[in-house]
């Protein structure tokens, strides 16, 4: 049975800040950091936005594109490392807000930056085994870097939702493969506000080992090579890693540009590869082939071999739902306002 993406929706908050502005406050060369990371600006959520609101916005944008009855959605899984509640699911609120409740299963996923793609794989299994007609997988984050930490220059916010089904498929998922190891490259302990990371350790043994192995193994399973793909999208913690991974696997710049959003909006964590994929689906033609490789610290990669079908054009009737529309026209913040928005300022007891 063919299983794939029936609809998709994206959400990127309105606010931006530049690494140059962050560097100005911390006495570092923000321009050099911006160049080094290939991140010109990152998205910032409003004080009244969190993973729940952005997941709802992405899910509603998904529903606007298609004619699916929300009552036919049998599962909603939300992947994030910044769920507002430690106990109480984001997914139940999304289900209620898109009127899919109560006849469905819902849960939150956590696997650093790849919880959203893990949710897609779960939905694929549930749909392929005929347990349900549609499953919705969402990847959203509002992650933070500690003030002055290297992560602060790129950690941003965004969300993307994908509806997985077996009929009216707009992009068929031909193969999926995962590669998982126990690698302590990045973590956040229970109750801690900011994550910790292993500095340079996060590159070779973590991101590159998992992304390259997963991408290579998937192509072996699918019997494909880089030239068979029109587009490729990797997890993008910055604008440099995915370009290097693409080159090492044998992909050209023209295959990577469309899905590379981190230079404009930074690292959206669980949403990163999904927003990149949404951006590709926004312009791809029937028959186009896409390789998507997610990465989550801790560590693992999920890879997908995707073929776009003729139904894709039916999902693109509203230009306001395009990722490019959400990325353009961002409003830039100074660091003080950014710190206030992100709750980085310690307030007096009793203040909100």
């Amino acid at each position, binding site marked *: 049975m063919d299983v794939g993406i029936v609809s998709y929706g994206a959400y990127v908050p309105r606010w931006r800040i530049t690494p140059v502005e962050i560097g100005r406050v911390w006495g570092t060369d923000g321009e050099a950091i911006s160049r080094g990371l290939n991140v010109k600006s990152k998205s910032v959520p409003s004080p*009244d936005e969190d993973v*729940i609101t952005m997941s709802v*916005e992405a899910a*509603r944008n998904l529903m606007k594109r298609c004619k699916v009855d929300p009552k036919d959605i049998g599962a909603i899984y939300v992947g994030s490392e910044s769920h507002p509640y430690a106990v109480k699911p984001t997914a139940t609120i999304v289900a209620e*807000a898109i009127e899919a409740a109560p006849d469905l299963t819902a849960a939150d996923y956590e696997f650093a930056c790849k919880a959203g793609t893990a949710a897609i794989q779960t939905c694929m299994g549930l749909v392929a085994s005929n347990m349900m007609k549609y499953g919705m997988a969402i990847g959203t984050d509002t992650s933070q870097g500690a003030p002055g930490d290297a992560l602060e220059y790129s950690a941003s916010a965004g969300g993307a939702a994908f509806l997985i089904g077996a009929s009216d498929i707009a992009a068929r998922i031909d193969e999926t493969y995962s590669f998982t190891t126990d690698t302590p490259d990045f973590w956040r302990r229970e109750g801690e506000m900011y994550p910790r990371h292993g500095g340079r350790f996060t590159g070779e043994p973590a991101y590159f080992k998992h992304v390259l192995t997963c991408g290579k193994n998937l192509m072996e399973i699918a019997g494909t090579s880089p030239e068979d793909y029109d587009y490729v999208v990797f997890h993008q913690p910055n604008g440099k890693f995915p370009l290097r991974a693409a080159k090492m696997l044998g992909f050209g710049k023209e295959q990577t540009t469309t899905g590379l959003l981190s230079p404009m909006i930074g690292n959206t964590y669980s949403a990163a590869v999904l927003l990149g994929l949404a951006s590709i689906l926004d312009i791809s033609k029937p028959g186009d082939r896409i390789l998507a490789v997610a990465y989550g610290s801790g560590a693992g990669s999920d890879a997908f071999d995707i073929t776009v079908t003729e139904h894709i054009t039916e999902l693109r009737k509203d230009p306001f739902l395009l990722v*490019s529309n959400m990325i353009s026209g961002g409003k830039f913040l100074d660091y003080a306002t950014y710190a206030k928005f992100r709750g980085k300022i310690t307030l007096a007891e009793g203040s*909100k």
Partner: protein
Amino acid sequence: MAIPRFWRETPSRYNLFASKCGNCGEVHFPPRSVCPSCHRKSIGRMKSIKLCGSGNILSYSVVHDAPEDFEMQKPYIIAIIEMKDGVRLTAPIIDCDECDIDIGLEVEASFRKLGQEGKAGVIHYGYKFRPLNTTPPEK
């Protein structure tokens, strides 16, 4: 606000569910169980309807002296919105600069955090409105 009260209002706060009188056709938001015009004639004839989600600003105010819960968001805009369905409601306007707000501006509902019961309490979500995007994206 008490948790049960907010929970009871979830359909109207999340999805703008209103009531329509089966006798006179008047729409009410928040929903009512009895029509204030038809009284007992409306009993058992009130229907639940979903508002379309967009409308125009009828009047607005920019709040500079905010209540404690909204201190971090000031200055913010609060507006009376005339919905396309004919009903009026009051809501904050987001993603809009003070210089861009105007009477008649077309707005649409979005989903935002409304408040929380302290750091450890429940978080309340619901509608706020933002200017309707009318400029097509650059190609």
